[in-house]
């Protein structure tokens, strides 16, 4: 073994040791957050146990570091997982896959493959011109933005694992079904002609990354994503704290409650053209739920905001003819409505 290899291996071990150490510290701090919030609000500030202000403040002091710590850990973990799934590798897995199996795989890979809506067009062309079926490509394109790790963490942190699991499961379900339906409809002729005429160059040989590099990419993901969304998280928790401390007014119950049958379609129609990142929508979700809106309605609103948007339609217009865009948006919106109504009916 040559010296550089030895050195690299030494560095890799140092990284792993550092990572494990960091995890232990993380766990230790995380476990003490509730005690700290309690101590700060009731002992240091000496606020009375029953006051609204104290309860709101305790919620905020506890939830903020909790959610930010969870977010950092998950974004870091997902950032590392994503170094194993390049779009090229995902494409290789999906090439020539039959529908149904392909739709399920594509929806799952949509979660772990790095994806930015600004690359939706090159990715779409790169997929459909090299043998990934159109419907399978759509399953990927739906799941990648909709099933989002930031949203998952925030839902888990603020509303518990059941809501987070519902979001994950139904998001995947919609991506699989909508992609499958689009595949069945045989809409290939509604893709702009030049797309299929494009001859993409050979994909770059994915260089094999070493662990220090993967960890560095994980850190980069944290800096990039947490650096961008922390302000929305803070806002969301502040809204939540306000609701938590003071009595909910339930004024949303009339228009977005369970009893209003049209609340889910209304939420989806409102949410589809809107564009926001997953974190930006959480303060609104907090406010709506706190004011008595039904869970299915709010989930439908959130999904339609992050899955579909007017800017996305404009970007995709470059490669899709209007009829396919309308079909795509229509099927996904319908899927979200069904999920929303189902929740309101079952829960």
């Amino acid at each position, binding site marked *: 073994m040559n010296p550089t290899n030895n050195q690299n291996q030494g560095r890799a071990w140092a990284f792993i040791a550092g990572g494990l150490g960091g995890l232990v510290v993380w766990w230790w701090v995380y476990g003490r957050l509730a005690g700290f919030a309690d101590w700060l609000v009731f002992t240091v500030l000496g606020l009375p146990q029953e006051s609204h202000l104290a309860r709101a403040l305790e919620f905020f002091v506890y939830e903020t570091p909790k959610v930010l710590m969870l977010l950092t850990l998950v974004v870091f973990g997902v950032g590392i997982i994503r170094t194993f799934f390049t*779009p*090229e590798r995902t*494409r290789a897995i999906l090439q020539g896959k039959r529908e149904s199996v392909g739709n399920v795989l594509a929806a799952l890979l949509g979660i772990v493959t*790095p*994806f*930015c809506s*600004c*690359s939706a*067009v*090159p*990715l779409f*062309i*790169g*997929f459909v*011109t090299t043998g990934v079926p159109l419907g399978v490509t759509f399953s990927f394109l739906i799941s990648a933005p909709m099933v989002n790790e930031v949203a998952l963490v925030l839902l888990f942190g603020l509303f518990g694992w059941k809501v987070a699991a519902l979001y994950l499961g139904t998001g995947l379900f919609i991506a699989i079904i909508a992609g499958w339906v689009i595949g069945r409809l045989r809409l290939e002729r509604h893709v702009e002609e*030049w797309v299929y005429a*494009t*001859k*993409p*160059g*050979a*994909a*770059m040989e994915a260089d094999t990354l070493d662990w220090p590099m993967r960890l560095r990419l994980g850190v*980069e993901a944290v800096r*990039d994503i947490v650096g961008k969304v922390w302000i929305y998280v803070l806002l969301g928790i502040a809204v939540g704290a306000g609701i938590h401390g003071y009595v909910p007014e339930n004024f949303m119950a009339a228009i977005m409650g369970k009893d209003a049958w049209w609340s889910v379609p209304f939420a989806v129609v409102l949410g589809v053209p809107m564009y926001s990142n997953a974190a930006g929508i959480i303060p609104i979700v907090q406010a709506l739920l706190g004011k008595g809106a039904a869970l299915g309605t709010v989930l439908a609103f959130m999904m339609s905001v992050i899955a579909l948007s007017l800017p996305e339609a404009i970007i995709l217009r*470059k490669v899709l003819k209007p009829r396919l865009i309308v079909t795509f948006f229509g099927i996904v919106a319908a899927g979200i409505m069904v999920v929303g109504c189902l929740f309101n009916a079952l829960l």
Partner: protein
Amino acid sequence: MKKIQILGTGCAKCQQLTANAETAAKQLGVSFEIVKIKEIPEIMKFGVMSTPALAVDGVIKSQGRLLTPEQIKPLLA
């Protein structure tokens, strides 16, 4: 003369990458030209699926990442 090519349809990240590549090349003191490749069929010819991507003399060096000037320097050497 290094030909630095930035592939992307003009999003904020592409512009930042262009600026970073320029900084890196200037700090290295190499002679260079920056070419922005914005047309999708052109981008596809490089086999790139995530933008922004960076190519030097026609060879893709990085894709889907916004590199800092420090990270770009070794790619120009």
